[in-house]
């Protein structure tokens, strides 16, 4: 078989990025930040309604939100298709976390929730087609990296950590609600789920009048100080800015009815200087985030370890030289 000459690219999966990296990449994909943020809130509500309708567990929603936000780091945000993107994200997340549903059911519900009263077979077919087309693109955007959103999910690991740290049921319940608000934030793209769970537990502890956050080494939970701070401050800022719109506000559990914006302002005051993940120095020169992804390259390869790329960059060994007669 003859060897065709065509372009190939190899991309290393980087499932988590820093805040600045995300912003830099989004410069290529999100022309109007305000419109994106508004839609994101609407899409989150839409996904919540879908999940409630199908009685999906929270991990399905969490994974869909990760996919949705991840998609828009490397693909143009367009208001016309964002609900289709969200539907496809949910469809894929169902496969990812084993809460399978037929595409017809997902699309019917998606169209119904978008206000379509009479759904013609054509409209349904078109929706299905778009969802399937987008599915592969979403996976490509994630570099087919299944290591994340796989076994660890915020709500489940939060309960386990809570138990390990001997925290009360009510406190864990509060943390569980805080973690629900975290799903709306870009922090999902920055740190792994178990770190978000730890940060939510820390906030819940600090909101409890007579509990102090146990002085644990985050390394014991496979996490670290700066990742945890990233989530911690992000959540505090979220509640300080839009507590009124948070889900926590309307669902405060017994014993925590007095929690409000003031409580979070207080927490932030006592936490000191805002800190989090260190931003890398090479922001401007990192082609992974500054260059738009080119999905027209014919062979697009995705790998999980840098070792594999390094191996391929090694010069190809020349065939052994024939021994010269002496």
């Amino acid at each position: 078989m003859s060897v065709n000459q065509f372009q190939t690219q190899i991309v290393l999966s980087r499932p988590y990025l820093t805040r600045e990296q995300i912003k830099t990449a989004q410069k290529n994909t999100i022309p109007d930040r305000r419109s994106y943020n508004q839609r994101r809130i609407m899409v989150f509500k839409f996904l919540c309604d879908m999940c409630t309708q199908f009685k999906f567990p929270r991990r399905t929603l969490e994974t869909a939100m990760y996919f949705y936000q991840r998609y828009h780091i490397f693909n143009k945000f367009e208001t016309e298709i964002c609900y289709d993107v969200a539907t496809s994200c949910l469809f894929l997340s169902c496969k990812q976390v084993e809460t399978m549903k037929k595409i017809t059911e997902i699309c019917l519900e998606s169209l119904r929730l978008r206000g379509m009263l009479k759904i013609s077979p054509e409209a349904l077919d078109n929706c299905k087609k778009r969802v399937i087309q987008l599915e592969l693109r979403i996976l490509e955007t994630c570099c087919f990296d299944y290591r994340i959103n796989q076994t660890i999910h915020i709500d489940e690991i939060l309960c386990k950590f809570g138990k390990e740290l001997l925290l009360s049921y009510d406190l864990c319940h509060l943390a569980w609600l805080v973690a629900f608000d975290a799903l709306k934030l870009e922090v999902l793209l920055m740190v792994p789920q178990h770190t978000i769970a730890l940060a939510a537990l820390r906030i819940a502890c600090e909101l409890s009048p007579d509990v102090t956050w146990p002085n644990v080494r985050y390394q014991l939970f496979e996490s670290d100080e700066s990742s945890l701070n990233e989530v911690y401050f992000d959540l505090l800022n979220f509640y300080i800015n839009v507590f009124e719109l948070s889900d926590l506000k309307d669902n405060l559990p017994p014993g925590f009815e007095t929690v409000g914006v003031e409580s979070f302002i207080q927490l932030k005051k006592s936490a000191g200087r805002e800190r989090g993940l260190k931003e890398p120095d090479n922001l401007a020169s990192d082609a992974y985030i500054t260059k738009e992804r080119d999905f027209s390259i014919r062979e697009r390869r995705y790998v999980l370890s840098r070792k594999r790329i390094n191996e391929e960059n090694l010069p190809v060994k020349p065939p052994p030289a024939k021994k010269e007669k002496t």
Partner: protein
Amino acid sequence: MLRNEYTKEKRVGEGTYAVVYLGTKQSNNRKIAIKEIKTSGFKDGLDMSAIREVKYLQEMNHVNVIELVDVFMAQNNLNLVLEFLPADLEMIIKDQSILFTPADIKSWLLMTLRGVHHCHRNFILHRDLKPNNLLLGPDGQLKLADFGLARNLGSPQDLLTSNVVTRWYRAPELLFGARHYTGAIDMWSVGVIFAELMLRIPYLPGKDDVDQIDVTFRALGTPTDKDWPEISTFSAYNKIQFYPPPSRDELRKRFIAATENALYLMSGMLSLNPHKRWDSIKALTSQYFVELPEPTTPEELPKLGGK
């Protein structure tokens, strides 16, 4: 412009969701198999088997589990690059020109169990173990393949489907429609494969799902409430024929060449009650692997078409 990294040289098979090609990885001339996933024509988008295959093979790197070398998109098709393995255990079992020694059987079983143990310690259930999915490398190493039905163990409250594993290798709890199960279902399949290696014919070849229950219990006895307390909670249980369990002597007659330790291990893996069934650690540390003969080294195992 660069040369493409993978070439597809020969089409070697076609499944429901993929076409398999033989090819070469250009940068190091390694022989590889490429599974091109069919993305069009599927009602439900990307096939779940493809997703599972990538998902679980990415997690594992073990000499007895097939290696996922690469994942790439080409012309809008998803391609999985797997290591190239020319034969499978089913071919070897069916090839009448090959004679198996007890040491060969021990070697294949050992490699299978090592692969299964690696899956289970990573909380992954294979759910489709059968000779056809145990591939053999040119160096004789046996590797678990086809993770299209695999899934992680999940939370205790997760409901799993009982419609898994090829019928002849399906554990009794699955035959009864259990929605919660563990790695014990894989261990059952390994037990049946072990028996098949000794008999050279399928051990429990049920004609259909109902017949499978009958065939299984005729060979191994119908479980009772005494040795499997929850058994009567399965609705199908009351409709089945009762068979007495086989005596050790009957088993000895069926498996003439097997040693006592081999029979003990096989019976352990074929315990009807999944709670009592041996797990991979117990099987791997059994006396069978300690007694002589030593397992044949992989390079010396029989190959297709003679040594």
